[in-house]
């Protein structure tokens, strides 16, 4: 397949690639339109009621009542976008159309699922944000290390280490010190990953897998060996939600963004800071240069090894903070393997978000949304099995990785060890 494409003239290749992508996008949109029309079909008489406020909110909005014919409108819009893409689409419009299309489908889905019932939109958005936090921080850790070309499969282990340390030190010395310790231990595992792959040139994926196995073993061992007998060591104070004055009273968005605990604010700030750092500062430019072309960066006098150590350690600290969410931000108690693959989902969020902090956050919100929607669906009694909904984000990630929609390009030197001349 590659041989065939290399033979084609390069200009032609790009054009046919774009056209193919536009056709695929168009096809998907039309398929979605048919899905909304036939599967998510709501009887015309029925209405879906979305509650926008909770009784004790400062500003109370009325319920949003959507008639069932909304889904017909969505189907028509999707069909329009799809046909437009199919006939004369450009790459710039492909991504936008898919984005709009997916948002429309989710709205139609919600209307279909709530038809004849009522549903608290605010509560679900708040839950979405909470569930997105560890995934977003895991994704951010992935972005920081992959931008310097170190593949970080170890996010899972770092999250788990953060969760464990948060619970242990949080129980002994208080939550704030527990948080600090979780960040430090996360950083330590980041440094360990850097040492294995930069200094000892171990295969990056193996190193990550090994760290995950090691952390899982260590934390499970201590949990069953020590915590089982000393419960006081595994009982930390949880950080409470803190409402931002004024902003917290905004209807719908307020509870989602400004009535949360430390970890939500921390994640939002970290995403902002790292976006600024990576794309608008000298240090960030150097880090990205190391990820794209380490030899060139080295020639210009950037210390490749040091840059990789620094950023992978930083990634570990971010993941350690994210890990502390599991214990200090939610239940206060550590359980064996309590991260349950959230680190891998963070990795998926990073790819879904195209190696960009804001993208990773957005992808994490999608994952968090699917996660909380899955829980709500059980209450709404829909015929779609909740397991399939839970699979949807992973399938979407595979589609993105396969480059069927848009192109996700990792840093050029990703995964390669660098040997200084």
């Amino acid at each position: 397949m590659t041989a065939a494409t290399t033979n084609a003239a390069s200009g032609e290749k790009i054009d046919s690639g774009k056209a193919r992508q536009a056709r695929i996008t168009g096809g998907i949109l039309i398929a979605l339109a048919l899905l909304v029309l036939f599967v998510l079909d709501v009887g015309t008489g029925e209405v879906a009621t979305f509650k926008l406020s909770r009784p004790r909110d400062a500003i109370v909005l009325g319920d949003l009542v959507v008639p069932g014919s909304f889904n017909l409108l969505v189907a028509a819009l999707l069909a329009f976008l799809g046909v437009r893409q199919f006939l004369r689409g450009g790459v710039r419009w492909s991504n936008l159309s898919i984005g709009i299309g997916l948002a429309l489908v989710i709205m139609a889905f919600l209307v279909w699922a709530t038809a004849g019932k009522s549903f608290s939109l605010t509560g679900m958005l708040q839950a979405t944000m909470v569930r997105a936090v560890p995934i977003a921080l895991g994704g951010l850790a992935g972005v920081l290390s992959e931008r310097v070309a170190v593949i970080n499969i170890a996010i899972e282990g770092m999250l788990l280490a953060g969760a464990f340390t948060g619970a242990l030190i949080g129980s002994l010395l208080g939550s704030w010190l527990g948080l600090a310790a979780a960040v430090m231990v996360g950083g330590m595992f980041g440094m360990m990953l850097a040492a294995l792959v930069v200094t000892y040139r171990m295969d990056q994926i193996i190193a990550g897998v090994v760290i995950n196995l090691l952390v899982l073993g260590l934390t499970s061992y201590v949990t069953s060996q020590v915590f089982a007998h000393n419960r006081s060591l595994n009982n930390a104070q949880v950080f409470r939600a803190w409402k931002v004055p004024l902003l917290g009273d905004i209807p719908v968005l307020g509870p989602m963004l400004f009535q949360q605990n430390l970890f939500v604010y921390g994640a939002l700030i970290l995403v902002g800071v790292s976006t600024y750092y990576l794309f608008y500062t000298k240090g960030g430019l150097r880090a990205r240069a190391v990820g794209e072309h380490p030899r060139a960066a080295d020639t210009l006098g950037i210390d490749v090894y040091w840059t990789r150590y620094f950023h992978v350690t930083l990634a570990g600290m971010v993941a350690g903070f994210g890990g502390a969410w599991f214990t200090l931000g939610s239940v206060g108690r550590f359980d064996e393997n309590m991260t349950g693959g959230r680190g891998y989902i963070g990795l998926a969020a990073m790819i879904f978000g195209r190696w960009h902090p804001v993208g990773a956050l957005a992808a994490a919100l999608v994952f968090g949304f699917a996660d909380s929607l899955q829980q709500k669906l059980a209450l709404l009694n829909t015929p779609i099995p909740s397991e399939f909904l839970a699979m949807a984000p992973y399938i979407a990630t595979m589609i993105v990785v396969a480059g069927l929609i848009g192109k996700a390009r990792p840093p050029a030197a990703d995964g390669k060890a660098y040997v200084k001349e």
Partner: protein
Amino acid sequence: MTTSIGKRALDDAGRALLQRTARGRSEFEDLVVVPVFAVIVALILGALIMLATGVDLPTIGKSFVALAVGSVGSLNALSETLTASIPLVLAGLGLGLGFRAGLFNIGAEGQLLLGGTAAVVFSFTFPSLPFPLLMILSLIAGAAVGALYASIAGILKATTGAHEVISTIMLNLISYRLLEYLLRQPYIQKEGRSDPISKSVPDAGQLPRLLDWIDPNLRLHAGVFVMLLAVAFVWWLLFRSKIGFAFRASGANPDAARYAGMRSGLVIVAAMATAGALAGLAGAAQVQGVLGRASPGFSAGIGFDAIALALLGRSHPVGILLAGLLFGGLEAGGRQMQVDAGVSIDLIGIIQALIIVFIAAPLLVRAIFPWGFRKDAKGGKA
């Protein structure tokens, strides 16, 4: 697992010359000294971790004795070791084969889960088939589903270049949900149960126990022959067959393999499918030989341990068999350790991970343990 370390032609030529002259020594170091050293150091570090968590010295001694007795100390221990190693070796063979072809398949866990489930479903769908036939067909059903599931990642990689690490991780996550869903379907779920658990494998579909004429508690089952056959088959496939040569060539140098006329896409899909078939077979052997039914997470991390196993066995079938016996022994001995000395079996997980750290980073081993190696052989393959 060959990471190219720079394109310094002169240096490489020098190293090649050195390797030719000191070949026996460096192979010995790589194949024997490093693994033995890794196991010993991992056990010592395991003892230190026990010490750090407040286990006293006599108990540590007792736990190592229990580890030895529980893995090879009695007929029952040997039977448990072999039983534990069967799925590990089968899945490890698949992963090793993938490594040889340059594919890092993290998805053994998912392939194993779905393969095992397929074997269970097949066996209770045709309960009237006679004994060896049902058993064999169920194993084949497990292998086929494992192969199909793995080839999704293979096809994606061959056609679009999607990295197999990411797609197999996603396929793992999908398989957990899919299994949860399947186990609640009325056709599969055990009658009268509300929790997700499947119907049982009928007697004719089970891998028969081999030693129950000595003691009915001995769990060793006929899967051990499946394991040995698979080792022989993978050895033949890798080192004596045409497609195996294509696997190894594509793994060692994809560009050269393509210029030599090997179809890289086909090689990727075939290698992934074979790896998936072996992982599916591991799942089938586990449900037909030990568990008797499928439940959520019945794979118990075998798919991830198998990664470690394939690395330890240097992706060679015989090496994987030996590594599998070691891990099976650690598993069986770990259970004994938990009973006798009250030390959690999770310690075994730490020891396994440490073994892999040392195996996969020979430079690290050389740094810690310089007197076991020739000085000039430093900086070998990473």
